[in-house]
């Protein structure tokens, strides 16, 4: 949750060790994509209530970028995975 994040590499760590970037539901468009796709990626967010995926950086730990899947109303965390390595390794 928001107090303690279970880093797949480091275990339970307090929120202070992490830096949050924002939604992980946007994907960087291919280099040649049209302007709309880029605009969507850089500026528009679904920002839904409920289940969200976010990029959290374990900046004071293993320095891995994680995808934290959580509920933004009760702050329950469902899953934390390494953004690059994915679920299989966590």
């Amino acid at each position, binding site marked *: 949750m928001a107090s303690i994040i279970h880093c797949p*590499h*480091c*275990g*339970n*760590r*307090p929120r*202070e*060790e992490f830096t949050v970037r924002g939604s992980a539901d946007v994907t960087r468009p291919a280099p040649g994509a049209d302007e709309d796709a880029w605009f969507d990626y850089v500026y528009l967010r679904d920002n839904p209530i409920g289940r969200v995926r976010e990029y959290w950086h374990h900046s*004071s*730990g*293993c*320095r*891995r970028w994680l995808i934290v899947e959580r509920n933004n109303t009760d702050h329950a965390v469902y899953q934390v995975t*390494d953004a*690059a*390595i994915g679920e299989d*390794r966590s």
Partner: protein
Amino acid sequence: MSEYDLIPTPALITAPTGRFGKSDGAPEISLIACPETVLLQIITASGRDKEDKAVLDALESFGSFELRNAGPGQWFALSDAVPKTLDLTAVETALASIADVVDQSSGRIRIAIEGRPVRDLLSKGIPIDLHTNEFTVGETATTLCGHLNVHLTRTATNRYEIIVLRSYALTLWESLIEMGLEYGIDSKLQD
């Protein structure tokens, strides 16, 4: 040209040393600035965690190294024995197929802290569970101590080593003394 001797300056050369805090009875905590010996950062291609054996093997020919995990596929390789004149290029070559090597011998400072109440003291800064059964001898963690990023290793039952960025070493040292006042703390630079 070699009329000049370039003498290294330890990071904690100006750090306060001696006895602090509780003055009755023996100090219960000792704080030691470890010598600045060889410390290499070893990083394998992203996140391959299980290759410490291969790394150690590759390092063997240069002397005996201790590996301390610092994240997935990352270690600090340190050695008190290997001379500081170690040929880094040779190390790079030896490890080329497994990992990259970056010298951190100057960049990261090692501080040891020991004594009966050491866990109590460390818990004033370190958020992880230090219970003797939870963080066992030999375990490592990259974490925080107060506002500082640190790398922690439990080296014996009541002894821990903290690796910290050189520029923060003095701040860490001073805050460890502050945390230790209630137990009595003896601090020294080890040569």
